[in-house]
Each structure stands twice: as structure tokens, then as C-alpha cells.
């Protein structure tokens, strides 16, 4: 049996140490070892986007990453967006605009949306569509997702200017 490797990492703010077999995918590590099952696997080859998490502040496919590579990494999953209390602003926008149906793909959309809005605070429909093209949603037709993302952008802007003034 191949050697297991010790990794130390931070997941959703919690420091962890684990021994992992090299071939263990990050998605499986999160889901089965840490029981963070909000990260879903829809294709395991990097296309559908359901498994998207944040690694060191950037979105990434957890199905295309091995846990063993994550030594020292800071990982955030959907579970970190609103660990308790009210939904985050983006989650709330998805809720209000009916931007999810079965909800399987939603965690990936949320993480990409968060990253996108941090970089592009005032996006057009077109840029939202471009930015989210790495995620497949089979239920919503994306219409309400785009609306939710734009609504969230407007809210975030409001919040910023509100705090600023």
C-alpha cells in the first residue's frame, strides 16, 4: 500500500491534521472524512462545477485536486458561508429569486458567485453568464441565478456605500 501522507490544513476556519492516501480526492476527503457533504460531485472530471470549493482564496474543483496536495492550505466550503444565523447576502438573493431548484449544483454556484462579485462588483447579465459558465445547472435554466447574482451585487453595493457614508 502506498505511503499515507500527513497533511495539516485549515477547513472552514478549523485547523486539522490527517493522514491521507495520495489518491484520495479532495472532494472525497471533505465529504467522507470531514462529513462536509455540501460539496457535491456531479461529474468528477471538472466540468459540472458542483464540487467547487475555495482553496487559499480562489475557487477550484475539489474533484480535480488531491487531499495530499492540500498540506498548509486554507479551504472553504459552502458550509462556511453562513455557519449559523441568517443566510449570507448571496445565499439570501438565491433564495429570494428562486435561483435553486434541486439544490445539488448550488454550493458551487455560491462559491463562484462570491469570488466573482468580489472582483466585479457591478456586473452585467453578460458578465455574470460568462463568469458562471463553469457550472451546470440542469433545473433553473440559469435565468433566476443570473437575476439573483445581479440582485446580490446591487445589495452588496448598497451595503458598501451605506457603510461608507
Amino acid at each position: 500500500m502506498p505511503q499515507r501522507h500527513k497533511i495539516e490544513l485549515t477547513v472552514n476556519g478549523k485547523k486539522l491534521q490527517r493522514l491521507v492516501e495520495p489518491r484520495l480526492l479532495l472532494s472525497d476527503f471533505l465529504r467522507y472524512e470531514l462529513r462536509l457533504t455540501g460539496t457535491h460531485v456531479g461529474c468528477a472530471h471538472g466540468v459540472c462545477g458542483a464540487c467547487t470549493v475555495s482553496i487559499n482564496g480562489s475557487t477550484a474543483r475539489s474533484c480535480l485536486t488531491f487531499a495530499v496536495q492540500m498540506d498548509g492550505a486554507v479551504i472553504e466550503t459552502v458550509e462556511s458561508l453562513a455557519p449559523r444565523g441568517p443566510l449570507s447576502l448571496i445565499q439570501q438573493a438565491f433564495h429570494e429569486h428562486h435561483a435553486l431548484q434541486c439544490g445539488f449544483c448550488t454550493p458551487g454556484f455560491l462559491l463562484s458567485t462570491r469570488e466573482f462579485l468580489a472582483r466585479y462588483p457591478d456586473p452585467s447579465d453578460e458578465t455574470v453568464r460568462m463568469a458562471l459558465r463553469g457550472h451546470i445547472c440542469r433545473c433553473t435554466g440559469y435565468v433566476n441565478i443570473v437575476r439573483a447574482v445581479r440582485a446580490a451585487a446591487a445589495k452588496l453595493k448598497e451595503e458598501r456605500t451605506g457603510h461608507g457614508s
Partner: protein
Amino acid sequence: MAADRDAGDESGMIGRPLPRKEDDPLLRGLGVFIDDIQEPPGTLHAVFVMSTRAHANVVAVDIAEAAQAEGVVAVYTGKDLAGRIKPITADIPQPGYQPVNRAVLATDRVRFVGEAVAVVIAENRYLAEDAAELVRVDYEELPSVIDVDQATGPDAPRLHEGTRDNVLFQASYRTANVETVFASADHIVRDTFQSHRLAVVAIEPRGCMAVYQRRNDSLTLWSSTQLPHTVRTAIANLLDWDETRLRVVAPDVGGGFGGKCSVYPEELIVSFLARELNAPVKWICDRREDLMTTTQGREYRFDVALAFKRDGTLLGAKAKIDCNIGAYPSFPLGASVEAGGAAIYLPGAYRMGEYAYETRAITTTTCPSGVYRAVAAPVASLATESLMDRAARELGLDPAEIRRKNVLLPSDLPYTNAVGMRYSTGSFATCLERALAHADYVGFRRTQTDNRLRDGKLHGIGMANVIEHTGQGTLRYRQRGIIYVPGFDGAQVKVEPNGRAIAWVSQCTQGQGHLTAFAQIVAHELGLGMDDVTVIEGDTAFGPYGTGTFASRGAVIAGGATLRASTRVADKIRRIAGHALNVSAGDLKLADGRVYLSGTSEVSMSIREVAAIAHSMDARALPESDSFGLEATEYYDPAATPTSNAAHVAQVSIDPATGLVTVVNYVVAHDCGRVINPLIVEGQVHGAVVQGLSSVLSEAMRYDETGQPITVSLMDYLIATAADAPDITVLHEESWSPDTAGGFKGVGEGGVIGVLPAVANAIADALVPFGCKINRLPLLPQAIVALMGSRSAGSLEDIHNP
């Protein structure tokens, strides 16, 4: 019971665009899909060894090496399971139907690439996959047949024992004067439309987990299914198990769309193994396996002719329909569901008295097909709506004009069409006009008159009228011989001592928002707030038996059952409150968590107080005629099949250099009767339109000449992303159904039915100068440039309307 439009009032919950109750956990990553369920200790993982041949005799299966591999607990072959699990058979008692068996694991013959020949059970999925690679199968290849012509040719091998030929179902029908109208028609348009095989690709692949309890020989199977009750009954029948010891649970399900609307061999095998090995057994389908084994759909050939008068009046239709249903009929819907549905759907939203069809379901050595969202209706609609456009052009009419001439008008209703489907209510003409107006059809045509080429793109507009047979009940399934589909559903509504309600509904939700929509019905009837109502679905251990969620039947049938049960509970609340308040029950209204006397707020009590009385937790007594508890169970089956309707208008632009199509504007005017939650209805329409759009523009499940599927990853099976999808406007009409409880009609499939013809017609409209006809899908860039022929982008400047 005809719905009473005045029943609702301002405080009612039905009709409100409420955000969904199910969202919160899903948004937090707390959804529990099949692979998210905490595995019990000792859970074993199954991996199936799939056939690499489309058609072959299985000479030998060598499991020796696999059985010795690390972590492997057991390996079973088809021969090991034969006799332990009965084959799956959808024996539909209908003329022209030939039933066939499907062994849960192939024993001596495989009939499609992906058919399971062995199953490996190991400590984890990684090890199970390692071992599955070590199973060696010796095949003796047989000729494959991948399309309906090969399967019906003179030399075609017979795929199934005990059948005459590969035509597993055929039917025909004609009205009395169809030949006469065709003989006397001024104009006949005809073409053969070929639609392509699609994979369903619910974003969550299938999967199941079985836990066996030895102490009472009972089993719980969690499965990502649309049919928990049917799966339970099938396990009982095919594994010879007492159904009362079986529980099937559909947890959160990541989309169904018909792909999870069959009982699958894996569900039976995993259940069997859990008992056999006395250990929890889990199987999660991976995406490649999903693209090879989950029922596919919509591979049809429609040869259709429409007969018209010179003025554009539609006189009749003739259709010859062939469906490629793949290697095995699905269960419970069987081999006839696609071919039968295709024929029945064709008359659509038009006044058309004469119709003849011949329809066939043909088995081939490809993945089994099933009831993919809207089944055959989108292709039937593509055929008629495309021919309608061609007739218009040939007769010198505008496409909108020819539809106005033929679409059903209020004065036509109720209308019984050429195959006996009855449309009680509908807003066919209104939807068409509203969609055209909103899309500025007239304005578009005015611009287009000058030039189809604007901003370097070719522009076109297309439309379609849509009907959707929704909420089909017991009678429809009995008529069609589909005896394994009950057709009814049930709901048990119960007010607990704290005055809050819980409803157990026999369906299961895969994203359609049942937990919200049905809660709205309960809250509406009981005068409760949305937070006071919890809906639970998908668990055979609770509530009544039922059919499942598919074919746009949720709102009508489960909604109807929920409404009926809620009404009965509301009646009891009134009786109890009337008794307690010493007023007539008939004068009491329920709202805001209270029961009060109409016209006054003085005389009232809370529903919580009523619940306390009902549970003998209050000094006041029940009326003598009532017993304890505050609950009711109702099964529901609509009086007739309610027909939803819609009109779709699509506007496209085409890059003439690359052939890439962009949908720039999309309008749907939609009527699903009384709307429970417009937010959810719009979501259903959006999703269906884009799913259908994806199938028009890019999705295609391809097989090579030998039956190898060659699009088994999402790198090769191309699903529309946000970058491909348009914004969509949904306009609502509400023609309540007199045939259903609450006036509800179904929604969910109609969007797909409309988008195929609307987009194909818009593309054909943009390409009118090229004189091409669209009769094949998908319309990938390669197809568009082929349709444009040799005219290169450079010579487009002079393209005007003919």
C-alpha cells in the same frame, strides 16, 4: 369538484410567489442527497462491471482475481443472481405489445454497452473500482443494431427471446375521413423529422443505499428516485419480500427529469446484497456510468404530413412514428409509453378533425430509453410546428397568421381532439397573441424586411403553440395498459397538538418545490402561516401509497390530494370550533391561525386551541360525532386529464461565419390553470426551456457504428451553460381546470415542448434566404453551416428576404 374561483381571498396562500421552504438547508450545504447520507459503520460499496459490447453472448465471467483483491468482500455475476432476483418485466396488456425480460445482471447475453455483467462489493469505492478492473469477461460478439432501420431490416438479429421481431409495440389509428381530406386538400406539406438520442443528465447521478435489519428481516433502501412506492413494490415482487418489511426513501434528489423514473437493476441488487451480506450496501453512479446506463430518450423519427386549405386552414394530419427505445423497455412505464405518447400528442393546440397515425417502439442495442422530460411531445411539436411554418411560406401567409387561423379559440372549448383528448379550458389564442406582442413580433418583422443580416448576424424569429397533457390519472394509465403505474397519489394532513400541520405526501420532490407549494395549499385551507406547515415526501414509511413525481403530475394529483385532505381537516376544525364556540360550523372561516365567525373577530379561537380539544388536552369536549385527532388522508385521481397550454416565441441570431446560434430573446405565455406559486411555475418554465434549448443546440448522445457510446463525459456530451442560455420572460394566464381539485393544471414539461419548435423555426426563419429545411437535430454550428451550404460569410451582404 370544480374549483371555486372565489374560494381564495387576499389572505390565502395559494397564488403567492413565496420563496421556498426547502432552500435554506440546500443553500447552507445541509441538503441530504443520497451520497450525503451518513453511512452506517461497515457500509460496503458496490461497483458494477459494465459490458464493453453492444451485443454479445457472455461466454465466461472470470472473477477469481477480483475476488482476491484488497478490500473485496464479494463478487457476483449474472448467473449468481439469476433465480435470486427475478427479471424486470413491464408486461403491458395492450394489443401490439411484446413483453421482454431484463435480468438484473446479464446472464448469457448483453444488449448494450454499459449493461452490468458483474458486481463487486468492497470496503470502499476506490478498492471496489480497483477490483472491478480485474473482472474478465469473455464475449462472443453478435451483430449490433443501433437504429430503427437496422433493427427492422430483413437481416436484423432478434434481440430478445420469445419475440416475433424487434418491434416491441405498435399501434395505429385513423379518423373516418382522413383520406378524404388529404385527397381534397389544396396543399399538403410533409417531411421526415429525425430527433437524436439524449441523455437526461440530472446533475446528481443515480445512487442508492440499503440497510438491512436482521432482527425483523426488514430493509430500508434510500434511492435517488422519482418513484419510491413503485420501487418498494418492485423489490417486494422481484425479491419475494414482504412489502410491509420494506421502506424506500427518496432523500433530497438532485433532479430527475425522467431519468430516475424507472426501477433500476441496481436498486434491486443493492437491496438483495444488503440482506445477503447482512451489511449496509451503497452504490453511487458516476457520471460516465450515468451517461451509459441511466435511461436516455427522445430518439424518434416522425414522418408527418399536414393537409391545408388554400387559406391556411388545417384539415388533418398523418404521422408515421418510430421510436428507438434501446435495449430494454423501462419499468414501470414499459415499451409503449414513448410511441403511444408521440401519437397522442401530435394534434396539439389546433382545431383539426382528421388524423391518422402508425407508431412503433423498436428495440436496439443501445442504452434503454425512458420517459425523458416531455417524452415524445417536443419532437411531435417540432414536426407540426415546422410544417406549419413551411405551409405558411408556401401559401403566402405569415407564420403567426396561419396559427391564428387554426389555434383553438375560446368558442371551441370544450374541445375534444381527433384522438379523444378533451380540452376543457385553455387560453391558446390569448397566449399566442400575448407572446407575439411581448416579443414585438410585428416590429421584428418590419426590421427583418430590410435585411436579415444585421450587425454581422443573421436574425430570425420563431414560434410554437404548446399543449401539455398533465396530471394523468388512473384512467389514462389503465387505458394505455400501463398497469404498474397506479396513477393516483395521496396525502395525509395532520394538525398536531401544537396547532401546526404536517402533511405526508406520496410523491417526492426533485427540485419542483413541493415542500413549499403543497405547504401553501395546506396553509391556505387551514388558515395557517407557512411556518406552521411542514410537508414530508419521498418516504414510504409515512403517509399513503402513491405513484411518484413525473409527467407534470405533482400539482394536479399530489396537490389535489393535499387539498382534499386539508379541506377535510379544515371541516373538522370548523366542527370542533363551532361546537366549542356554540356557533354553526358553516359560518366559520380559517385565517391567520384562528377560526372565527364570518364578519366578526369577536367570536374566535386559535387553531392551537382546536388542536388541543381534538387531542383531549383541553377541558372542552369534541362534538359527539367526531373522534380524536385532527387528520385526514385522501387519495386523489382527477376526473380528466387537464391540459396546460403555452405559446413560445424565440428570437435568434446566427454568426454566419461559425454557425453558432445565440438565442437573444425568449418569451413564453403560459397557462397551467390556477397557479399555486408563480415563482416556482416560472422556475419550471425557465428550466424546461433551457434544458430543451440545450437539446436543440448542443446535446447529443452518440454511438459509433458498433454501438459504443462515445459521448460519455461532460466534455463530449455538451450541456448548455449560463453563457448559452437567454433571459426568459414568462407571462401568466390562468384558465382554471374544472376537472381537477383546486383548478390546478400541471407544469414542468411544457417548456421543453415549446422550445424545440420555437428555436428551430427561428433558425429556419433566419436561414430562409438559403432555402434550407430543418428536419434534424441538434443544430450545432456544423449543422448550421451545412444548412447554409456553400454561401460563405463574405457573400452575405446581399442577403435580403426573398
